[in-house]
């Protein structure tokens, strides 16, 4: 038996179902198992970002598959529906996707774009058809189990992510407001956290941010509005974060420029082209350090 790694629903939706009515626990358990993708065979998929709310002008999801998928007809297997608080479908959202399949070099990650022409206020498709997401409403992104992998295996259960559309985000990411802290990762290790203030586009964050400790760029994990890294040694006196200005948030606003920039009304707008470098000079000690157990100094940048 394979267990799908789709984290999108997990417990919270079940809690919402229970909160909205008086459904018995075993029903919720069944919904939970369905939504976490427990199935008899097949591949797994994980949807990024995995957040309860996205801005109403959200641009894209990343579908991470455990093995290469069949390509060319992906949009037959993808659907966006508006749902009520109980998760019941209200209506299918028409024509939400920019129907171009964008795969990584391993064909295991597909970038799923909402149509930018509908997500940009005031442009033609946005005016003609309307926006894809409306603030305050809930939606479910569905992946059909009929979508096969290259090896012919099906994806198994009904795979989906429920999210709510929040206020539109027209603000550029602001690295000057970023802070740091510490936490524990899934393997129980102490990690240093960088709080980014908003959920960044996860692939953009992986590509455009560099965390440098003692002159060495080190791996980090993107956790919605946090970056987490395991320091190379227990005591880290300082580290640098170097940010390519092309770094984007969920609405496509980059450090360089807002996504929704009207060059007619801002003819002299200058994109930022040089990287942003943050120095975290504070003394950061990790949990388990007897000198400073479980605490971290907090300083403003």
């Amino acid at each position, binding site marked *: 038996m394979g267990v799908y790694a789709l984290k999108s629903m997990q417990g919270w939706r079940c809690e919402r179902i229970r909160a909205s009515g008086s459904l018995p626990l075993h029903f919720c358990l069944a919904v939970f198992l369905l939504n976490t993708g427990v199935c008899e065979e097949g591949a797994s998929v994980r949807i990024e970002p995995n957040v309860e709310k996205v801005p109403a002008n959200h*641009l894209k999801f990343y579908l991470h598959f455990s093995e*290469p*998928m*069949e*390509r*060319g*007809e992906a949009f*037959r297997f993808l659907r966006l529906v508006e749902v009520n608080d109980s998760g019941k479908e209200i209506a299918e959202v*028409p*024509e939400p996707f*920019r*129907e*171009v*399949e*964008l*795969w*990584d*070099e391993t*064909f295991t990650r597909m*970038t799923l*774009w909402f*149509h*930018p*022409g509908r997500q*940009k206020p*005031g*442009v*033609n*498709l946005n005016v*003609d*058809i309307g926006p894809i997401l409306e603030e305050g409403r809930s939606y479910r992104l569905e992946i059909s189990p009929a979508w*096969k992998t*290259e*090896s*012919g295996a099906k994806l198994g259960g009904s795979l989906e992510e429920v999210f709510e559309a929040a206020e539109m985000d027209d603000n550029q990411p602001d690295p000057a407001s970023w802070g740091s802290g510490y936490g524990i990762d899934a393997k129980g290790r102490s990690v240093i956290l960088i709080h980014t203030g908003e959920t960044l*586009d996860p*692939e*953009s964050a992986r*590509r455009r941010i560099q965390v440098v400790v003692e002159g060495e760029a080190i791996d980090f994990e993107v956790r919605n509005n946090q970056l987490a890294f395991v320091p190379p040694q227990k005591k880290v006196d300082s580290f640098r974060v170097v940010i390519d200005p*092309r770094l*984007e948030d969920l609405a*496509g606003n980059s450090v360089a420029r807002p*996504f929704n920039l*009207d*060059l*007619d009304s801002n003819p002299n707008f200058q994109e930022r082209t040089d990287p942003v470098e943050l120095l975290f000079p504070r003394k950061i000690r990790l949990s388990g350090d007897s000198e400073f157990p479980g605490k971290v100094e907090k300083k403003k940048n």
Partner: protein
Amino acid sequence: MKTLSLFLAMGLTVGFANADSGSHLKDAQTGGLELKSVGKISFGPEGLLLISDPGSASVVAVETGDTGPLVKLAKRIDKIEGALAQACEAENVLIVDMAVNPASGTTWFSVNQRPGNKPAILALSGDGKVSVPDLSGRSYVRMNLPSAENAKLRNVTDLAWGGDSVIVAGQSSEEFANKIFQIPTPLEHGENARFASAETYHVAHRRWETKAPIQSFIPWEEDGEHFVVGAFACTPIAKFPLEKIETGNKIKGSSVVELGSGNRPRDMFIYEKGGEEWLVTNTQRFKKNLFGPSKFWAARVKLEYLEVNDADETNENAARRNVNAPNGPDAKGMEVVEELFGAVLVSQLENAEVVVMRETDPENAEAPHALELVTLP
């Protein structure tokens, strides 16, 4: 000027230097061609096939040996997917792209075999027979798109032979961004492309767009200057001066025509009929098509619309298609091409003759497609 533009679009070419004898390739490799994936394809002169391999962020140019004589497709193929699948012994195939070789009339396909997604290149000759060409022993070069951009560019939206260069348009997977690559001839292994980002005024949006990707294009020459004439979603047609491509910079295009919102262009070519030259682009509508039986439709535009350069005729002042007049005087030279309703893929054989892969059932996305030779009006 117009004649040369037409020649470029038809895949004819001018002279070359430093190429291997009789070849458009330099230091070509013979044998060992493997494709990680297949995407858009296009023909150059003398059977030179350009294949985008998005899995390896590269473009392959291979001498197919398919140099004629010309045999045009004799009859309609009703179920092209079935014919191709049978030839490569797959359960089914998904057609990624199609290009007819003007030299031979043979229609070449890039496909993914099902199940398994194994890429394949197949050829349909004029007599309707499908073959699996053995390219393993052919001379080829693999042109990597610049490594600085490798991590980004995963989708070649179009590619074309441009006489003294191969032009490639691509877009990023992760960011809303576009690139135009120019690879000089003779073609050789490695990274030789110059590239730039394109900035365009979208007439329908009434805004400048710096990031929207070019969906399809043709090389174009006007008064000795070389351009890419590209079509974008929604659907401005703009021209970009190739001379201004410098690696890493931005080139500003001039929007010259707006075909209407809600469309995604698929192919583009030029033909001449009755003394009039036309630019054709077939597109897919995002929503139901109110003026035809299919989401797939095509428009033709008099070529004179491309030749404008003044500010009062470009960008915010560019000509817009009259959506209430599909044809006739009120259409003012921007017309719906009824012969191309349902055309999913179109490839030009010779002037007004095009090979069309067409829907057989607009209501059923899984229905097989038909292939036929069409003469445009």
